[in-house]
């Protein structure tokens, strides 16, 4: 009897202590916030899908379908139930991971996604690396330069980069580097040769990465400019801190914090751009999947993909917020 009681109270003690840790409690709160957001999004998708003009059953079965088969299909899809029941069913299915079956391929949505996920992840990671590795130093240099030629060039470059819709830049890259110059393959190859696969990855990754770079340069530059004008930088100079250390130790630490947040918020756009990029370069991935689903009017797959995108966006945003909370001491130690 007392043994049970003590283990329960021990559990709550540990739980409370763990929650008391400012980092953990911050992360916990942030996670809690994600749940209603997810709910809202799922509801929106539910509503949106049911806004499709026309009866889903007749869309699926075509004009020649008989009344009986239409009724059967509706029953199968659960369309004959009242809307609240349909909603609850919908939520239930999402929670259990049952996102339905693709109408065109017959595989479940989850299966379809898993097939192409590695490719999308490869592309996204490569793009992030390119964008950050190229963008951060350029942005920092631009802020340090401040109205020098580096500053103007990088501002212009990043503005141009941001003006390209992802598919436009992708097409131009394709035309120039793959078709005209032939440096890279036009179609993504299936070969297992790592060099070939790298060559196939290069242009799409560059496409996404350069646009991300433009964004990172802008954000880093303005953030660093803001930091460099702060009082504590002057205090550090008054202490005798040399310029290099001033930038590396004082300015960067503060300047990069907002960059993390902004780049994190950019993930959504990155996903959007990767959809376009995959279409252009004919790479397997979530983008191609959604494109195919649109063309084939595969509404089940579309709905499933939208749910997955929504989940991804929310997860990424939550992770970004938590990371921000981890690196900014003002948030950690409230």
């Amino acid at each position, binding site marked *: 009897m007392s043994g049970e009681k003590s283990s329960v109270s021990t559990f709550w003690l540990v739980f409370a202590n763990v929650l008391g840790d400012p980092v953990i409690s911050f992360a916990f709160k942030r996670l809690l916030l994600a749940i209603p957001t997810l709910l809202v999004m799922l509801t929106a998708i539910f509503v949106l899908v049911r806004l499709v003009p026309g009866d889903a059953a007749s869309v699926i079965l075509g004009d020649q379908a008989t009344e009986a088969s239409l009724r059967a299909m509706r029953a199968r899809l659960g369309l004959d139930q009242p809307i609240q029941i349909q909603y609850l069913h919908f939520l239930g299915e999402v929670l259990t991971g049952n996102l339905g079956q693709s109408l065109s391929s017959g595989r479940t949505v989850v299966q379809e996604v898993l097939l192409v996920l590695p490719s999308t992840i490869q592309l996204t990671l490569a793009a992030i690396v390119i964008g950050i590795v190229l963008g951060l130093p350029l942005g920092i240099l631009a802020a340090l330069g*401040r*109205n020098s030629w580096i500053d103007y060039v990088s501002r212009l470059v990043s503005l141009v980069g941001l003006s390209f819709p992802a598919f436009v830049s992708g097409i131009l890259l394709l035309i120039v580097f793959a078709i005209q110059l032939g440096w890279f393959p036009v179609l993504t190859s299936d070969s297992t040769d790592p060099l070939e696969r790298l060559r196939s990855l290069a242009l799409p990754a560059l496409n996404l990465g350069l646009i991300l770079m433009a964004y990172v340069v802008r954000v880093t530059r303005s953030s660093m400019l803001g930091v460099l004008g*702060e*009082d*504590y930088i*002057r*205090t*550090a*100079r*008054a*202490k*005798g*801190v*040399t*310029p290099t*250390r001033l930038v590396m*130790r*004082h300015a960067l*630490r*503060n300047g990069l*914090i907002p960059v993390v947040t902004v780049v994190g918020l950019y993930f959504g756009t990155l996903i959007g751009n990767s959809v376009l990029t995959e279409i252009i370069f004919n790479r397997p991935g979530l983008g191609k999947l959604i494109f195919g689903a649109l063309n084939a009017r595969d509404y089940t797959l579309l709905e499933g993909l939208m749910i997955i995108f929504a989940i991804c966006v929310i997860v990424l945003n939550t992770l970004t917020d938590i990371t921000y909370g981890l690196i*900014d*001491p*003002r948030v950690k*130690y409230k």
Partner: protein
Amino acid sequence: MTSFPRPALDLRNLRTEFRIGDHWYPAVRNVSVSLMPNETLAVVGESGSGKSVTALSILRLLPHAGARIQGGEVLFEGQDLVTLSERDMSTIRGNSIAMIFQEPMTSLNPTMTVGDQIAEAILIHRGGSRMEAKAEALRLLAEVKIPSAKSRLDEYPHQFSGGMRQRVMIAMALACHPRVLLADEPTTALDVTIQAQVLTQLEELKQAYGMSMLFITHNLGVVAQIADRVAVMYAGEIVELATVDALFAKPMHPYTAALLRAMPRADRANESLEPIPGSVPGLSAVPTGCAYAPRCPFKDRSCTELHPELVSSGDPGHLVRCPVRPVGGVH
């Protein structure tokens, strides 16, 4: 004739300019003053008088773009700081000359612990291990009377109150035992009660470390409390320079007198406070002749034509920049 001790810091004809639009305008106009060892020199003036710019010019902390030291010398330990290389300047900053600033809320790095920020000053100028520097930082924190210094060493600035942060800044400034401390309105942003504590502490530390202090303020009450000598600045120039007693008892320049009249005083009861009419001229609108003339009740025609020089008033050590002042001081 007694030989005068060498000044700790000697400003000679210092001239600093700011750029507005396409032109350069002086913010500090030929300021010459000496800071003697162990002395507290208060620099008083309204905002826009050039007092902060003077201090920033000494340590060459002006913003890169739009500001420049146009001429003059800042002599310290046999060197002219104006012509020193940036590298050599950074060995002097925080080391032999230190500075504390007005806004404690924004003047400390929010992402570095207080202990690290103090230790940094030590590590830069004195080397040694991190352990030693941290130990010294702890000692300094205790010296500026931060309670529970040991645990607060690893806290971040936002976890301290305004007065505490200012003490941290003081500890940081004193870390390398500077000979000169430049204090730019360090107590202006603090509550009155905290002000008094910080001022007292500064005075004690100054005595203990044997420093000279250049204390910038617009508050004459603070001047009365801690200054040995006072320099009154207006529109980028020193208009009066005297010991604190002499300044309060026998102000010579009409501006000084006006400042005193605008301040409530315990030793002169039943006086009404008088604000000074007009306002401090902007950088690009400094009048020719005497800068204060437009607001001065004693001005005559020569004041708008001739630019007055800072000369001895007759009383020893009391300089004033006003040829038309009434004899015997202004009351």
